[in-house]
């Protein structure tokens, strides 16, 4: 188990700058996701940690040791690839054993017939076989040992890939979208299994995915990447509730966050699409973009008028798709089925944001802090005691 820290990683392929100075630190034993749309540099970053690519600038430190210039094989990390990377001519057992065979046996001992003559080879081979079996049992693939990768299903193959990673007892697991080639049901099961496996093995895991739901459900911490930079690094809850930029807010969460035009008026009082709210932006003025998650909108007697376009009943919740009547901005509202039943009208509803749930972003997309109007008054009211500065001169 080892922490990983990245320090100012930059990488360009020709003219394209893929990574523009990424610095991150992952705690030992943590499950960390790198998430972002395709082309954001997350896979390149993972490959730089693995040693399959070299960074143009910056340092990679694994377990306190600077491994920037070291070969992939010498970094003691294991990688699970998106596509099938099994050796098609070897059985499952041989596939899992190969990393151990390459590390523990000399070239002489690996040779097909000569190996038998070197003393001690037999014991070492037996030890390898035991460890391979152990790893296979952990992943419940011990009944598939004699098969070849071509005879396995997608899920079984990913398990073999995990087995190959686990058997080495690496300092970190690196996973590059390992579930993206599986069907939806299997992906869901494997997600849970991976988390479970991580808990049992306890090895630092860096998990690359473009699926925000995967990142949110599996990770201790998530790094949201876009255009070669890390926009935010935090726990899933922080990322969801306190996104640092509008891009993070839009990328994380399903259904998507609602973005509405707003304005900070006199004393920073926020209005949402023309409707006054109870929020104040102490350090902003002028037009803002306001984000509000679908579940943070509630039906209200007065508030934003929304024309309902489409309703999805999902059992535990109802998703109402509509448009604001002021400027036609699309809006999604996530409601409790009972609340929707109680709505006075099914064509036009009035909604208001829950207190303290509004997220404000400035023209550059950066988060603007909001406080409630009551809190704002408290900040202003206490009179500043006038400090007299004695004049000595």
């Amino acid at each position, binding site marked *: 188990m080892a922490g990983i820290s990245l320090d100012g990683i930059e990488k360009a392929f020709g003219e394209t700058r893929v990574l523009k100075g990424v610095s991150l630190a992952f705690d030992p034993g943590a499950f960390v996701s790198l998430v972002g749309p395709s082309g954001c540099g997350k896979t390149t970053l993972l490959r730089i940690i693995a040693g399959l690519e070299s960074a143009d600038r910056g340092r990679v430190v694994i377990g306190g040791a600077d491994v920037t210039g070291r070969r992939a094989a010498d970094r003691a990390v294991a990688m699970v690839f998106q596509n099938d990377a099994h050796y098609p*001519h070897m059985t499952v057992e041989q596939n899992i054993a190969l990393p151990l065979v390459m590390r523990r046996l000399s070239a002489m001992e690996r040779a097909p017939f000569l190996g038998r003559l070197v003393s001690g080879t037999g014991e070492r081979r037996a030890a390898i076989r035991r460890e391979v079996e152990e790893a296979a049992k952990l992943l419940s693939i011990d009944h598939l040992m004699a098969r070849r990768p071509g005879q396995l299903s997608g899920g079984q193959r990913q398990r073999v890939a995990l087995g190959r990673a686990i058997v080495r007892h690496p300092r970190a697991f690196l996973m590059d979208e390992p579930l993206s080639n599986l069907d939806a049901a299997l992906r869901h099961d494997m997600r849970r299994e991976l988390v479970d496996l991580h808990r049992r093995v306890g090895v630092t895991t860096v998990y690359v995915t473009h699926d925000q739901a995967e990142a949110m459900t599996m990770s201790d911490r998530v790094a949201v990447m876009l255009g070669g930079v890390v926009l935010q690094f935090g726990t899933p809850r922080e990322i969801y509730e306190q996104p640092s930029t509008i891009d993070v807010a839009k990328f994380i969460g399903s259904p998507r966050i609602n973005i509405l035009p707003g304005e900070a008026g006199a004393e920073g009082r926020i209005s949402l699409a023309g409707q006054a709210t109870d929020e104040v932006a102490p350090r902003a003025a002028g037009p803002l973009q306001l984000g509000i998650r679908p579940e943070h909108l509630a039906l209200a007697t007065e508030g934003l008028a929304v024309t309902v376009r489409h309703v999805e009943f999902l059992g535990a919740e109802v998703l109402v798709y509509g448009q604001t009547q002021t400027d036609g901005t699309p809006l999604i509202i996530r409601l409790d089925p009972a609340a929707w039943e109680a709505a006075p009208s099914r064509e036009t509803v009035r909604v208001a944001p829950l207190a303290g749930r509004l997220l404000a972003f400035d023209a550059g997309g950066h988060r603007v802090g909001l406080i409630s109007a009551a809190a704002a008054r408290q900040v202003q009211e206490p009179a500043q005691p006038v400090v007299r500065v004695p004049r000595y001169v």
Partner: protein
Amino acid sequence: MIPGSNDRSLLADLPRLAILSLLGLLFLMPYIWMVSVSLKPLDEVWRASMSLIPETLAIDKNYGRVFREVPIGRYLLNGAIVCAGILVFQLAFALPAGYALAKLNFRGRETLFAFVMLGLLIPAHVPAIPLYIAFAKTGVLNTYAALIAPSTISVFAIFMFRQFFRAMPDELIQAARMDGLGEWSIVWRIIVPNAWPAATAFAIFSVVAHWNDLFWPLIAVSGKGDLATPALGVIYFRTEEAGDDFGALMAAATLTTIPLVAAFLLAQRRFIEGITMTGLKG
């Protein structure tokens, strides 16, 4: 399958099969004629009325003469040694070279590959005279080495393996690197075992070409050496032993083709797999 549908499809296939059979026969005709002549006595060969089936068999006379007068077994053995030697070296050079050109990133890789491709444009006959002079001066003429060495590097094989390896996923090789395999281990443990279909297809092209090659053995082996390859052996036999005894000559020719025909029949399925997979045509 339902028997009725099978019959119907056979009937529908009949015109196609007829055309294919006719073309097949046309291509086979020289070979069949060779076998036929090798079975006939000489007077029947020269008869104006041509017939495929010999009236009197002269197997003993024709084939017997070949076995009595030339060391045909030796020629076949020479052919096997030369072809095997060439093939082993060709694979030993072309597999790593193809891997390097397909999967390793190094400066000038594309330029190097362009030079390899240029090599495809040079006919085998162009370097024959310089090679002959070099071999004569170093005294390696009339050896197996002289027969094998010029063909050990096959540009075609490098090209073919490079194309084949490019289709292999990069992740396979990266996984191997992370598993602690060096580049040589990757080639011999991962790449080569998966290159068998391509290697088999190439092996057949190579063996057929060098088994039947007359040009270079004729230059490299002089006199009535014991090093003659099958094709060269037939030539010797024609000029020195058989004269105009075409029956015996055809018997010798038939004998030299038997190993190839046998090998092809045994490896037929793999041969066709290999060719369809690489998208190459003879």
